[in-house]
């Protein structure tokens, strides 16, 4: 956060120094520090969070501090890395705690633009399943919490190779991605991923092996999009082979936004029922940069043996585009997994 503040304060100076010379380093809040001479961009985001959940103390949390490094050493090549510090500092009834903090490589990959419509990626990347997982950073989403169905049924990271691109189709644009994952042998932190924000057994949520892909159609000048996703995978700790199917949609109209996702996961283990879930979310402009947000979600998990429904109501303030301040109250039917309560966050892209 301090780094973000320093960069923000330095932005006008950097811009003034740059003037019309695009070869000079320049910083733009929300767009990072760009060093044209090195074809390098340094950027990131951070979020602070306060939560008061039933059965627990009010807790203040420097939740995320993520740094992006984007390097384009040649026209066709891009290297991207996201290094994230999680749970960096927590203050609750027991005082300051930073013992749970950790530094993780969220994403690290190299992209090669084979043609204008085909890119090849190798490394660790976000699993292209659903929409939320691909834009999950706090400043980008409308709520403090993340729907359970966007994180439990399909692991959120993959390690391997990915082909992706964009094709014109009718009046819109079809984005595609297809991947092969070999996390068990390729991911150095394999087996360490855990669910966030929920009280679930300490099980890892990593692929062993996976293959899948996504199609996403953007139309109405990108105001609308629909996506379908598929993943076939073996998950860590030998819980069998799974097939997951997802569908999602989003429509923006005059600052209103309606979105939703659904997932169905076939579980192969004998005696285990399938997982399925869905959420729908509505964003309503209230006054200026203030928005009202409502969401309903449900997730039924055979693997976990839990059914969870939850409703969330909140406000989101976006005073300037890279900054989002949110307050939210949620109430559900499974307090063991998702306790009721309120949460506040402040996220900033820098």
């Amino acid at each position: 956060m301090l780094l973000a503040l320093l960069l923000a304060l330095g932005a006008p100076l950097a811009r003034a120094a740059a003037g019309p010379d695009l070869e000079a380093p320049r910083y733009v809040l929300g767009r990072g520090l760009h060093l044209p001479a090195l074809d390098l961009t340094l950027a990131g985001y951070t979020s602070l969070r306060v939560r008061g959940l039933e059965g627990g103390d009010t807790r203040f949390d420097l939740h995320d501090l993520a740094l992006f490094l984007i390097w384009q050493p040649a026209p066709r090549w891009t290297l991207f890395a996201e290094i994230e510090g999680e749970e960096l500092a927590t203050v609750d009834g027991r005082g300051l705690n930073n013992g749970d903090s950790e530094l993780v490589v969220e994403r690290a990959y190299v992209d090669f633009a084979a043609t204008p419509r085909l890119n090849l990626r190798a490394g660790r990347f976000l699993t292209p399943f659903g929409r939320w997982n691909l834009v999950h950073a706090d400043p980008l989403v409308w709520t403090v919490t993340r729907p359970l169905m966007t994180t439990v049924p399909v692991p959120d990271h993959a390690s391997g190779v990915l082909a992706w691109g964009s094709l014109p189709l009718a009046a819109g644009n079809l984005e595609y991605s297809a991947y092969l994952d070999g996390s068990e042998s390729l991911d150095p932190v394999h087996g360490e991923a855990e669910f966030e924000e929920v009280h679930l057994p300490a099980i890892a949520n990593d692929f062993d092996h996976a293959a899948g892909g996504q199609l996403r159609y953007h139309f109405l000048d990108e105001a609308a999009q629909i996506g379908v996703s598929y993943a076939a995978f073996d998950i860590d700790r030998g819980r069998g082979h799974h097939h997951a199917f997802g569908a999602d949609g989003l429509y923006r109209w005059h600052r209103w936004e309606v979105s939703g996702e659904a997932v169905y996961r076939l579980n192969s283990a004998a005696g285990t029922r399938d997982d399925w879930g869905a959420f729908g979310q509505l964003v309503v402009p209230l006054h200026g940069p203030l928005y009202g947000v409502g969401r309903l979600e449900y997730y039924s998990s055979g693997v976990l043996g839990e059914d969870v429904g939850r409703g969330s109501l909140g406000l989101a303030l976006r005073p300037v585009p890279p900054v989002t301040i949110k307050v939210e109250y949620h109430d559900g039917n499974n307090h063991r997994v998702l306790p009721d309560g309120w949460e506040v966050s402040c996220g900033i892209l820098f």
Partner: protein
Amino acid sequence: MQDARTARCRQRTGSIGRTQPWPRWLSLLLAVLLVGGASVVAGAEERVTGELAVIAHPGAAPLARRELVEVYRGKRRVDDAGERIVPLNLPGDDDVRRAFSLALLGQLPEDLEAYWNERYFHGISPPYVVSSVEAMLRFVAVTPGAIGYVPRCAADDRVAVVALIEVATPLPACAPAR
């Protein structure tokens, strides 16, 4: 709205044909989705009040409207030869930028912030911003792969005009480019 804009964008390569390869049920579904948008745009009568020249480094090939949209959405970052494409923008409050953004992308610069926040999260930055039409002409003139836009009357022989876009909002009077 979309068709009107497409018709207004004339490329030197000729007009862009439109086909409808979808099944009828999908068209009906889309029509339902379009109802909301149609109620808004129906009241906004458009009239052609200016023309923008899309400019590129000398020797550049003509650009189709669809390619231009992909470039300004950050979805096309290299050309067919594998050279980097460098799109440029004017500042967000510049009348020329706003007219270009509305005519090509269907949205004003401030309405694209959420879009670019998401792209940025994936390491894709929005177009560089230059301070003036003259700065855009100068940068495009000396930078292979650069693409920009200026009022048609401001385009000169330092750059190649690769497309023309008619806009529905008034453009400022053309000052001498040099």
